[in-house]
């Protein structure tokens, strides 16, 4: 079974985000970067599927050279190959642009696959667009926000989170699946894996060589601005013993906030 996994380099979730209003962009200086947490679940699922079915895992990242770090991590976790699609454009927040790049890379260079695995969204852009868009561009079925995946032969069943329940989606391969927390518990890299990853060469495909037109590579989004939201203000501390404070809180929620 051949699996492609798609990963993205994002600011650590513990980061305090600062913005440059004039550049309409997040200030990268001082940020530390990680593999988007949901992508780790996708990577782990690929490893488990390979353990059960054999096959090859290829990991892709689109972005600047710095993305090599997370590709190395995936190799150390056990991926067979990693490929960087070199794209120096700043964050566009446009999922379609990314999906076009990934779909073009898969179609033109790595068309042999059974499953495309993604994280359900990158933390940061928070779009949750690229898996579905890539599925549409490649004509594949999709299952997003998946917490359980079963593959047997050419068929798959995915359980995906919906409001107050779980949807069971049956599909045929090849297909797109995006991972949600709960799908598995990602493993740590082993020392042996890290050493082996160091020896692997990561091919770099410049985005300009994917045969996409300038129009397809342009963002469809015009960014008007990026702002830090006005922070919430600290309110009041309700004093007194537990009984008194509870009584006062209920009164305030009812009479002042009018939310209960």
């Amino acid at each position, binding site marked *: 079974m051949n699996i492609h996994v798609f990963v993205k380099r994002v600011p650590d979730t513990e980061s305090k985000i600062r913005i440059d209003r004039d550049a309409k962009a*997040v200030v990268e200086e001082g940020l530390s970067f990680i593999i988007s947490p949901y992508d780790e679940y996708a990577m782990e699922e690929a490893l488990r599927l390979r353990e059960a079915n054999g096959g090859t895992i290829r990991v892709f990242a689109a972005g600047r050279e710095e993305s090599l770090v997370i590709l190395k991590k995936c190799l150390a976790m056990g991926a067979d190959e990693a490929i960087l699609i070199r794209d120096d454009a700043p964050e566009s927040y446009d999922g379609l642009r990314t999906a076009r790049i990934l779909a073009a890379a898969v179609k033109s260079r790595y068309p042999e696959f059974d499953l495309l695995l993604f994280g359900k969204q990158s*933390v940061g852009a928070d779009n949750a667009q690229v898996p579905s868009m890539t599925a549409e561009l490649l004509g594949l079925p999709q299952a997003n926000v998946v917490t359980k995946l079963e593959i047997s032969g050419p068929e798959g069943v995915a359980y995906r989170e919906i409001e107050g329940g779980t949807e069971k*989606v049956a599909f045929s391969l090849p297909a797109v699946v995006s991972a949600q927390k709960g799908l598995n518990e990602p493993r740590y890299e082993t020392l042996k894996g890290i050493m082996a990853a160091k020896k692997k060469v990561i091919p770099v495909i410049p985005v300009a060589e994917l045969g996409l037109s300038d129009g397809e590579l342009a963002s469809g989004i*015009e960014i*008007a601005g990026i702002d830090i939201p006005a922070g919430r203000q600290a309110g009041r501390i309700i004093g007194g013993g537990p009984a008194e404070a509870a009584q006062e809180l209920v009164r305030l929620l009812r009479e002042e906030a009018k939310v209960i």
Partner: protein
Amino acid sequence: MILVFIETRDGVIKKSSLEALSEAKRRGADLGNGIEAVFVGTVPDATAAEVFPFGAVKAHILENPALDTYSSQGFCRALALLVGDLKPAAVFFSATAMGRDLAPRLAAALGVSLASDCTKLAVKDGRLEFTRPVFAGKALLTLSMKAAPALATLRPNIFPLEPAVPFAGAVIRKSADVPDGLVRGKVVDILREPAAEIDVTEAGVVVTGGRGMKGPEAFGLLKELAALLPHAAVGASRSAVDSGWIGHQHQVGQTGKTVSPDLYMAFGVSGAIQHLAGISGSKFVAAVNKDPEAPIFKVADYGIVADLFEVIPHLKEELIKLKG
């Protein structure tokens, strides 16, 4: 014209679809655009007519036996054909599980971009402007679209419902052309969670437990408390979920769900930056924590510095009095 996708579950229109419709009506008024609604699947006239009081002048129903259960490929195909016919200026979805699954697929089929999970819409220089949280709400991105139609998903619980105004619109049924073999993946079953019918993203009140809950048993207390509050759901911090005290579908924060309830109640939650990012859209925040220095108090409208195990029984008592 602004087209709004209307989602039904068990034959009932989702409230968040009506919220999207209401916002379309407001922004459509700014743009001088009419509003139309679209359903996919088998929908009775009476259900379709429920969209007219909220501003839709037409309700399109795209029918095909292949669309009786949800499939992203089938629904996308049916909507793409309708959008090709009607050429709307914009298409709105609610950012529900279905909307978040379907809208990006439709965007790719139409070759346009998508504004996901918007929390504010405006019209500027005759163009729609979309504001959406990024970095789980640590920043807000405002954008417009270079090409039409402008596609957007609207976060539930943010956009107010328009007052219903009686209106007799037109129900238009169309047979959707879904070729055999196109749909290679579809929903075959829906498993309901027996305990929590309401999702934290849709709840009016979220009652959340953190590390201070000390174990899975205490979440039972929160469930009892939630049962006494209007349209309430139980949430959890990442550390509570990672400790295995409650399922990850309850997790609120940057690697969980972003919520926007009327009231967010945090018990034993310290307030890590990732957690605070996920609750910033809450109208009111109340917090109970033993530690007066806990960061949660910096964002709480009402705080109680005390042991949550001593406070919760009294809160229950007060709420029961209120109900009685």
